[in-house]
């Protein structure tokens, strides 16, 4: 399991650990029921403090991504897809909110943003068609 800790970013260490484990769960790299390393061994491997690691696991548990069975260890929780989606949705909403407020300040119209979204979503299709386009040009 790759977890990369950076000191140069402003994100707290426990949050870095939490986010990276979470991403792995969302991406299904870590599967439901899988046993996570113990707090102490992960702390050692990442060379971070036990409390930092514990904070990360606690947060993950609070958000329902993992489940700790006392005396046994911490497991990836049975995925509550609804919950994860709900959470991701909130995150997206937050980011769009920021985008919209920036747009409003700078006079970017709703239409322009929609176009932007279309382009971003269309990127995949575009990528697939790139080779064809290339031949045309």
């Amino acid at each position, binding site marked *: 399991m790759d977890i990369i800790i950076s000191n140069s970013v*402003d994100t*707290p*260490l*426990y949050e870095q650990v939490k986010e990276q484990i979470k991403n792995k769960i969302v991406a299904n790299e870590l599967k439901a029921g899988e046993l996570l390393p113990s707090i*102490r*061994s992960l*702390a*050692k491997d990442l*060379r*971070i*403090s*036990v*409390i*930092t690691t514990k*904070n990360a696991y606690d947060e993950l548990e609070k958000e329902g991504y993992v489940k700790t069975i006392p005396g046994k260890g911490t497991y990836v929780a049975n995925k509550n897809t609804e919950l994860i989606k709900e959470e991701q949705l909130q995150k997206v909403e937050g980011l769009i909110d920021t985008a919209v407020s920036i747009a409003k300040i700078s006079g970017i119209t709703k239409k322009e943003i929609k176009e932007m979204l279309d382009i971003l979503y269309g990127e995949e299709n575009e990528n697939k068609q790139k080779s064809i386009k290339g031949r045309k040009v």
Partner: protein
Amino acid sequence: MANNNKNILEVKNLNKEYNSFKLKDINLSLPKGMIMGLIGENGAGKTTTIKSILNLTSIDSGEINIFGMDMKEEAKKIKEDIGVVLDDSFLSEHLTPKDINQIMKNIYSNWDEDLFLEYLKDFKLPLKQESKDFSSGMKVKLKIAIAISHYPKLLILDEPTSGLDPVARSEILDIFQDFIQDGESSILVSSHITSDLEHIADYITFINDGKILLSKTRDELLEQFGIVRCSKEDFEKIDENDYEKYKINKYEYDVLVSNKKEFKRKYDFKVIDKPTLDDIMLIYIKGEK
């Protein structure tokens, strides 16, 4: 005291005065399975605190409780389960690790000869060479090997990493993290090299001029504290209760705040940096309020 069961070490209102130096109302508590870093400048009182805890020097007042026992009454019993590395005191350098094994076999009832020999092998220390020929890194490793070969539940180390190169320092931090793996044993380690402790210490206790300025979990200290860098005009807008201390630099003010999230909510400042332990120490020592 039943409520102390979780704490391996408790120091209450420790006071000691000698010559012109004073330890004032030192309070510490170290839970099971944790590492506490004791940081501060040279001469801030780290060594005196450690020697007082170990009953190596007399104290004027205060209580030292280890494994739930009073140090004054049960010193011998407590010391059976403590491993100690002192900065300025050790056995004669004419002794070899083999000699030391012979000695320690008789000193600690829990001494594990095989374990000690294994550590020597792990740390690549020659068995039959006088320690005066060892590098400083080897000497520290020898001291640590001695300190942990009788299965202590508490390891107390004074400046174990001073004078070591980064590689040796990192090896020693590995040993520390191994030591607390069982979740039962704890470490109290002093250092003036704060970067060593910045990541692995669970608790940071910051001592200055014989007083404890801060004793917090690493996360509280390094993730919640922030340094606001601002102009003089901006500084004057900050309420006195919202910062710990400030330091005037040539071009800006450095303001230490204990809760940067809160601060961000209240004020609209652009630059709030994540502090290092050194930053915090510096502003605390040199700063004003």
